[in-house]
């Protein structure tokens, strides 16, 4: 999953910018708002603070109201800095929002493993694929529980419901693609393994006669 995190952190900056334009906030709350808005499939905890760090370097965000230092908000009893966007941050976000969207590259550790597997024992690779399939299934299940919990607790308007549905469908589609790809890989590898075994079978039987 390493590459998906890289991929998502590239756009985490823009997402954080967008959220800060809506309302200045702390990193802690930004993480929460990202999860609410985009689902938990693609962003890890702490993605917001990493993004804020990079945005600070590029002067696209700044601590809100530096002079007064009054804009501190308590999180778990500690005071945390509230960030806001700079004019150039707003400008960057506007340009990004209107630019064409890139197709995310699909590079995963497993891709590389399959590509480099060569003639090594197939059962182990099949097992790795199986483990990945199970892991995806369980993460999908977790995501389902979260979506349901949100849905059960909140009274929402028709528009909000539609937006929730669209977001959750996006997340589900992401898992769907991954699980189906893994299924296809597994079925193909299992078939190949069976073929190799049936080829090796008769030879093995002949061996003792010699």
């Amino acid at each position, binding site marked *: 999953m390493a590459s998906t995190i890289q991929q998502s952190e590239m756009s985490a900056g823009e997402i954080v910018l967008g959220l800060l334009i809506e309302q200045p906030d702390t990193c802690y709350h930004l993480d929460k708002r990202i999860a609410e808005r985009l689902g938990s499939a693609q962003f890890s905890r702490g993605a917001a603070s990493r993004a804020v760090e990079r945005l600070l370097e590029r002067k696209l965000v700044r601590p809100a109201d530096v002079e007064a230092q009054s804009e501190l908000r308590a999180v778990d009893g500690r005071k945390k800095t509230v960030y806001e966007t700079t004019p150039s941050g707003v400008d960057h976000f506007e340009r990004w929002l209107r630019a064409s969207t890139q197709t995310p590259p699909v590079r995963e550790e497993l891709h590389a493993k399959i590509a480099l597997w060569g003639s090594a024992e197939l*059962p182990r690779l099949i*097992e790795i694929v*199986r*483990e990945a*399939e*199970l892991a995806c*299934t*369980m993460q*999908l*299940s977790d995501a*389902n529980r979260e*979506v*349901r919990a949100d849905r059960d607790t909140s009274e929402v308007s028709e528009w909000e419901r*539609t937006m929730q*549905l*669209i977001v*959750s*469908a996006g997340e*589900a*589609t992401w*898992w*769907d693609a991954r*699980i*189906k790809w893994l*299924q*296809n890989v*597994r*079925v193909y590898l*299992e*078939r190949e393994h069976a073929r190799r075994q049936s080829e090796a079978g008769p030879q093995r039987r002949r061996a003792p006669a010699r």
Partner: protein
Amino acid sequence: MEGSLVLRGVWLSYPRGRRHVVRVLVDVSLEVRPGEVVAVLAQRAQGKTSLLRVAAGMERPDRGSVLFAGRDMWRDGEDARRRRHHRRRRRRRGVCSSSVPIALVRASHPGVDVPVEEGIALALTGSHRGREARELAARALEDVGASECAQRHWDDLGDGERARVAIAQGISRDPKVLLVDDLTSTLALDEAEDVAILLHSLAAERGLGVLVGVGDAQATRWSDRVATLAGGALIMEPPPPSQTPDYPNIIDFPGDRNATAG
């Protein structure tokens, strides 16, 4: 567990031509407990329907067992014979079991061209008097929120309405386990979600065990557990720990399978 449907080490294959067999299910184990929705996510032609038919007792597996409420559907020969005998006797007296333990639901044409409420009632007339059957049919349609479809014909219904009517037919005999064969793949996003929520609440309210075959991950949203099925092999997360593990070692851990199959 009381009312659980359990598949244990089920194998199924179909002959293709004289020499070949197609392996449809390979060492599949699965449990559906009362009140939970289990979704089986599989692509087309990967054994979803076969799995449901085996679970419904419509298809006999080559190997393995299918248990409902702790009873083996196929191996309990003595018991099955006794049940058949009783059923025959009761039928002669004009009474037949009013409820079924397991119902399989598909969105297919009922075969008789009458209004849907009458169609559901007709299917119940073997076990109920006409008026009672009608009342049960009406109640089932009400329970799935399809009362307004009662006097319409199957051909005039939309896909979403058909799914609801099919579920109504399924629950009209008050089953303990409902098997649902991909009702939502042709539906729009919000319609599909409504049907999924319906199954979720039916399971929760009635303690109904629901096993649903689905073609995409979005349709698993309202299920309690997700399994994936491909190449005949079912991969599934273990269920939450139960108070009393009635059936140990039936959940399909990938490691276990490799140990037994290898």
